[in-house]
């Protein structure tokens, strides 16, 4: 009897373990969204009247009608990928509230899990929402080409939008010469995090040019302070995207913006000499001995959320600089109360700061690499138009800005209304001469979420050897259809 129960108990235990294992295994990861364009923004455009405009005086027709109560009682459904029960979804819902209050339109916002698939299924099934958030211009183009989207050019005040949005977002929201997407939220990736106290103690200064950054790296090694760089790219099913961000950020600094857009549009080969030159710069930091903490194996084998762990070593920073977007502090205090300085002493802005990823060739100005979210329209009703117009105004950004973690695509939002780190990022974006939208998200997925990623992993595994062959193989993988 006892003999028989043994195996059963063990199997039950194994099943339990297996069940536990299952939950941890499937995680989706997304890379940033991505495209570039030169900005029309010089800063001093004609002043717009939208900021703080009272009801009835916006530059948008349907919004004015809605504010006057014309569509009271109507309802609009809007969807977005911001995680249900998460702070972002809550913030966006708050941002919609003033519109609900002022117009009496019932705006239903449903954050969705498995967002991109869910949206695709609804569109395919002929049951799309009225408005939907999209992160990839390529995806927007796909829907527009399929005839699923409402063309905004016919009625939207595009002139106003062009004046208001930063970063060439009107072009990025257009397909075939017509506007389909209105950008709302943006993220900036061209920043490098560093320990403020550690820098001060050693007399290190945040570099402003590539040469200074290399000199600082050498200095850190010479001082015996460990390795200058924290780099890693392991990211579940999306290994390698961090490396593609580096490539893009460097290419924006070593080549004119036209090359960048020709590159993701495949008007020049993927392994164009300019791109190989950028790779050369990148390998200077990634593959120079002692530059990257733990060498190439650490880069490939370490999860992106743990990249910077050695920076917070109790014995002092073991690596000193990490290039990653503004969301990374969320990973620093893992399993700790991140907001409590007693428990987590590395408060962003006080203990850990960031500097602008320096320029390389001055003639290409001060580019930033980033991603952004837009809204597209599936149903053409006046109340839907009104909401889309509202989302283009700075008022729609204000509630989220107040809660933090938001950088508006609308550049008329006053920089001083932001809190750290978005105040600095907004200033950085405003000063930028070029906004490069994450190129890997603008390439066909076979490359941008396929061979570009895996090629970077191979490149790291080879410790920077065989660059030309690897970039050639990515070029060869570009779909012909």
């Amino acid at each position: 009897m006892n003999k028989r129960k043994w195996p059963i108990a063990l199997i039950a235990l194994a099943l339990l373990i297996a069940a536990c294992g299952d939950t941890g295994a499937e995680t989706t990861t997304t890379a940033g969204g991505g495209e570039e364009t030169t900005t029309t923004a010089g800063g001093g455009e004609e002043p717009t009247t939208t900021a703080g405009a009272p009801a009835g005086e916006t530059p948008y027709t349907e919004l004015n009608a809605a504010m006057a109560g014309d569509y009271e009682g109507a309802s609009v459904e809007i969807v977005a990928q911001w995680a249900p029960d998460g702070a972002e979804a809550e913030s966006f819902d708050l941002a919609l509230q003033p519109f609900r209050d002022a117009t009496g339109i019932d705006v239903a916002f449903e954050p969705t899990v498995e967002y991109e698939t869910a949206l695709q299924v609804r569109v395919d099934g002929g049951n799309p929402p009225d408005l939907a958030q999209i992160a990839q211009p390529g995806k927007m183009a796909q829907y527009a080409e399929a005839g699923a989207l409402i063309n905004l050019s016919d009625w939207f005040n595009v002139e106003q939008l062009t004046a208001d949005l930063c970063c060439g977002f009107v072009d990025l929201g257009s397909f075939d010469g017509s506007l389909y997407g209105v950008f709302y939220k943006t993220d900036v990736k061209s920043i490098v995090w560093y320990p403020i106290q550690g820098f001060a103690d050693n007399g290190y200064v945040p570099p402003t040019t590539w040469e200074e950054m290399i000199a600082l790296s050498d200095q850190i090694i010479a001082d015996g302070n460990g390795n200058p760089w924290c780099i890693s790219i392991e990211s579940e099913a999306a290994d390698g995207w961090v490396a593609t961000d580096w490539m893009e950020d460097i290419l924006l600094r070593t080549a004119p913006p036209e090359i960048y857009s020709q590159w993701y549009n495949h008007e020049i080969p993927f392994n164009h000499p300019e791109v190989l030159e950028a790779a050369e710069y990148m390998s200077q930091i990634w593959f120079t001995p002692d530059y990257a903490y733990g060498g190439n194996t650490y880069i490939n084998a370490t999860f992106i959320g743990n990249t910077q762990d050695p920076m917070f070593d109790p014995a002092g920073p073991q690596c000193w600089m990490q290039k990653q977007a503004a969301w990374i502090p969320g990973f620093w205090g893992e399993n700790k109360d991140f907001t409590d300085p007693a428990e987590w002493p590395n408060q962003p802005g006080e203990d850990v700061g960031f500097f602008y990823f320096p320029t390389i060739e001055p003639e290409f100005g001060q580019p930033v690499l980033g991603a952004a979210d837009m809204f597209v329209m599936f149903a053409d009703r006046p109340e839907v138009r009104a909401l889309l117009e509202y989302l283009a105004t700075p008022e729609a950004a204000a509630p989220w800005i107040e809660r933090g973690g938001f950088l508006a695509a609308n550049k008329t939002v006053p920089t001083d209304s932001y809190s750290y780190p978005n105040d600095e990022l907004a200033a950085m974006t405003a000063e930028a001469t070029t906004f490069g939208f994450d190129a890997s998200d603008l390439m066909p997925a076979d490359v941008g979420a396929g061979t570009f990623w895996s090629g970077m992993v191979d490149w790291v595994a080879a410790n920077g050897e065989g660059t030309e062959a690897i970039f050639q193989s990515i070029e060869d993988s570009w779909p012909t259809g």
Partner: protein
Amino acid sequence: MSEAVDVQAPVETGRRWTALRDVVIGAGVIFIIWLGLRVLRDPDAFSGMGPLAGKLVQALLALVLGIGGIWALFIVVNALVEHLPARIAVVIRPWVFVLPALAVVGLYLVYPAIRTIIQSFTDIPEGGGALSNYTDAFTDPAVQIALRNNVIWLLVAPMTAVVIGLAFAALADRVKHESLAKTFVFVPLAISMVGASVIWGFVYAWRVPGQPQVGAINAVIQFFGGEPIPFLFEIPINTFAMIVIMIWLQVGFAMVILSAAIKGVPVELTEAARIDGASELQNFFKILVPSIRGSIITVFTTVAIAVLKVFDIVFVLTGGNLKTEVVAVRMYDAMFRFRNFGQATAMAVILFVAVVPIMVINVRNLRKQGIGQ
């Protein structure tokens, strides 16, 4: 249920009555099932009971409706068949019981398989011929690596699993606590592939040399002064590291089947060999192994099929990076990441074609043993 109990005189009317009654009952059953399905599909039907109670009631109803409904349907249809003339009823009755299963297999297996095959020839990039998905597949370096890796998996995993399983089965046969010993080897079989991959992900984990090693193997290596090995990030160790996981999972299965087969070998046979002076090794290779040849083939082919379809281990641990790609992961990527349905379906067909010969060997072998005639 439908047998007319009345005798002789009003047989005809009695039969009609019961037939009518059964038709009405049948319609009622179908109506109740339809109603139940409607309630199940209504998202608001259980909202009044609160989130947990509502879900429980819903699950319970689905269970009752699913099992009870099928049961009731079979009885009703069977009763209706009874009313047909005897000659026809005899022909139809088996189909009543077989058809639902056939319909399910047809709808969920045969139809998608045919659709997949058709799509692999028709969903082609602009300007390509009917075979272009296949020519693309075989010229794509990533797919070539995937095919090569599937061959490596196929050469290493089934053979090793069978050898270890056989050795363990033969040895455990002579151990006192046989079932306990076998349980330890068998337990991994109960772990899902994904679970096993996560477990082995920790076993193989690598940290910077000198730092505390999280991975079991590297902790041991470092303890004895060695350099930690990045098992999953070094070509070609990574592929073999993952094959080890598959073997670990499959050895239990091999052992159980082979152990049963060994017990089925008549003792007289081995006794006779021993009396004739055969050594233990001779006994094993010349008597035991040939006697259980059929079981060995069954185990080998079953493991081989599992290996050809391998997906979870590679997907979880490396995602196919660093030359660890296998066909199934490639298929998933083409389908869900690149939305390239033509390429994905071609990959599925390639996998299907590769599995068929092994299936044929398996079925033939089973027939030889008198199973599945």
